[in-house]
């Protein structure tokens, strides 16, 4: 072998070794905390196990058969879908509006940027507890306004028709800032020359936004939407704190149902099946979404 190619090979090898050693810590953590638990959950889903005893019996796919027929799981899934659609419908435009405002206003908008971002930084549990008081049917915000105007108390969290929407409102309050910053960052990537050129050609801000900025932001919107969809399907925190899945089962989500089955009803085997079912559902939906939205993006 000529010395040239063995040097190349040596460089490559040392490059590979370097790559492997830098990746190793992250991969090890991923395997221990993500890959192994997922595999283990699938294994547990084939067992009849209470979770608190050492009594484990292998029952194959019985838990999965039960899952497919489980009305409570599928109605919880419907609730997740409601959150998903409303989040997309509401959070994306709202966050876009805020981001656009901040982009236009520039450095002078720093105060707003900070204030609007704060909700995202607060722990969801803290938000849940606080908003329970804010939405209190007798002494909360809406109730007080209603009473000032001569009306009665306003029951949101106790009303099975309205509870889900009330919580979605709070969820939006917490997550809109995240998307706002996300879009703002994308705005930063649009060169200012584009705006200058457009305004020289006589385009108004409105036209600029719709014809130039928005198409430029499309990839960001798509990835934002994907995050939102996955987040809505996994969602747990605020629902658990504010309604616990109630009243009745009107705000039950797949995650709260999984929690109650596995830990409160002492049925870890079936609970694992629910968790794995969620995993599969979310993966499929996420992949379909990404493919679908990408295709949409390319068609334009």
């Amino acid at each position: 072998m000529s010395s040239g190619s063995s040097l190349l090979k040596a460089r490559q090898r040392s490059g590979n070794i370097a790559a492997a050693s830098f990746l190793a810590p992250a991969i090890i953590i991923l395997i221990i905390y993500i890959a192994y638990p997922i595999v283990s959950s699938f294994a547990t889903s084939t067992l009849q196990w209470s979770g608190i005893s050492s009594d484990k019996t292998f029952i194959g796919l019985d838990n999965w058969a039960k899952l497919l027929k489980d009305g409570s799981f599928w109605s919880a899934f419907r609730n997740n879908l409601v959150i998903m659609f409303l989040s997309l419908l509401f959070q994306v435009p709202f966050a876009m509006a805020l981001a656009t405002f901040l982009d236009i206003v520039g450095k002078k908008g720093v105060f707003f940027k900070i204030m609007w971002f704060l909700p995202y930084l607060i722990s969801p549990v803290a938000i849940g507890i606080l908003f329970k008081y804010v939405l209190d049917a007798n002494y909360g915000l809406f109730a007080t306004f209603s009473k000032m105007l001569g009306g009665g108390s306003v029951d949101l969290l106790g009303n099975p028709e309205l509870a889900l929407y009330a919580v979605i409102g709070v969820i939006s309050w917490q997550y809109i800032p995240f998307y706002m910053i996300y879009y703002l960052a994308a705005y930063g990537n649009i060169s200012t020359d584009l705006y200058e050129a457009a305004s020289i050609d006589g385009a108004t801000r409105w036209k600029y936004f719709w014809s130039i900025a928005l198409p430029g932001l499309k990839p960001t919107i798509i990835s934002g939407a994907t995050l939102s969809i996955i987040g809505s399907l996994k969602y747990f925190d605020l629902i658990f704190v504010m309604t616990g899945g109630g009243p009745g089962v009107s705000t039950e989500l797949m995650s709260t149902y999984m929690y109650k089955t596995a830990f409160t009803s002492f049925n870890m085997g079936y609970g694992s099946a629910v968790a794995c079912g969620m995993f599969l559902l979310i993966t499929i939906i996420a992949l379909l979404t990404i493919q679908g939205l990408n295709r949409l993006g390319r068609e334009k």
Partner: protein
Amino acid sequence: MSKFKKMAALFLAAVMLTCSLAACGNSTSTGSTSAGTNASAGGGEKTLEFWHIQTTEPWPTIIQASADRFMAANPDVKVNITVMANDAFKQKLSVAMSSGQMPDIFLSWGGGPMNEYVDAGNLTDLTGYMEQDNYKDKFLDAAIAQASYNGKIYGFPTENVSTCTVFYNKEIFEQYGFTEPKTLSDLEAICDALLEDGIKPFSLANKTQWTGSMYFMNFATRQGGTAPFADALSGKGSFENEVFEYAGTKIQEWVDKGYFNDGFNGADEDSGQSRQLLYTGDAAMTIMGSWFVSTVRGENPDFYEKVGAFNFPEVEGGSGNPKTIIGTIGDNIYHIASTSAYPDEAFEMLTYLLDDQAVSDRIDGGKIPPLKGMELSDPILQKIFDDVESAPDVQLWYDQSLPPEVSEVHKSTSQEIFGKTMTPAQANEKLQQAMDEYLTKKGG
């Protein structure tokens, strides 16, 4: 980077590091992850991990004092106490049990869940310890019964004798000239009169679900006694029984008449949203366990002066004995984990929870230890204790007697009855279905 930015970056990194180390190392207060380490901490010292849920003063101090007295008498044992809130405890305990890392001492409320723990092999049999020197005779018979399963004693009844009582605002009653009702129609007359003046008769926070169950239990027990529930639980009878249907129907009747505050199904008991209505005088009564007395004393001492109590009245035409007590004789029952390395020491620690000093502290704090012959300074509590001693039978809270998965269905269907999203018949059917599933699973 400018010098300032470098310093700032270094400083922030140091802050982050110290915070994360502090969080990892801190093991004293609520919610820390000190799982059951039964191994000795070096040098032959024995450690006992003790979890409890008495978060409001003076209770954490009283329990710590018991532990201190125990440690003084046993210098080679160290007791690590972790306090956490009720629901957080339930969650932590499930996780601890499924991972086999139970604390040496923890609690349950008896009933279904305790039985599950016994069947899972997680609890140490305490019969031997309790029978030594007839120690168990100290306790009320009903308390020992509640801590037993299949003829063996598995628990140490400790925290409270807590019964389901109707608490009312004495000031409002005086204002309207009401007297404590003896029958259900007397009670409903009071409610109607209150409503006319814009005061809500009952304050209820039912997001928590077990709170509404109090009304359900009272109606059912006064209407048919304790037998229907006991039969349904054992499989001899059923929840699709006219006694339970009566309970559901009465609840919906009361909801329709407006006897409860608005938004009750969304209000949270742990956040005190039902007590708020009482403090402001917007509601006059509430049905709650007698721990209510000690909570109000700590939260709003002025209101405490105005609190009166009576037992849920007799239902005309019902076969239930109006003196039957619904509640718990023991409340928090302490257990020793089967995996504990030091069960003897753990049991001795438990005895210090009810030694003479502790008993006197507990009475002063406003709770009733489940022991025979208690003399209490608080007149309401003395009344409750006397009622318990003379009660013909005791019904443990439904959500504690039922096996956990059935209990979840009961709480959820009870909430739906209140919300009128289910008829009483549908609720009972669903409950019976869950009970049937459980009984078949258990091997019927």
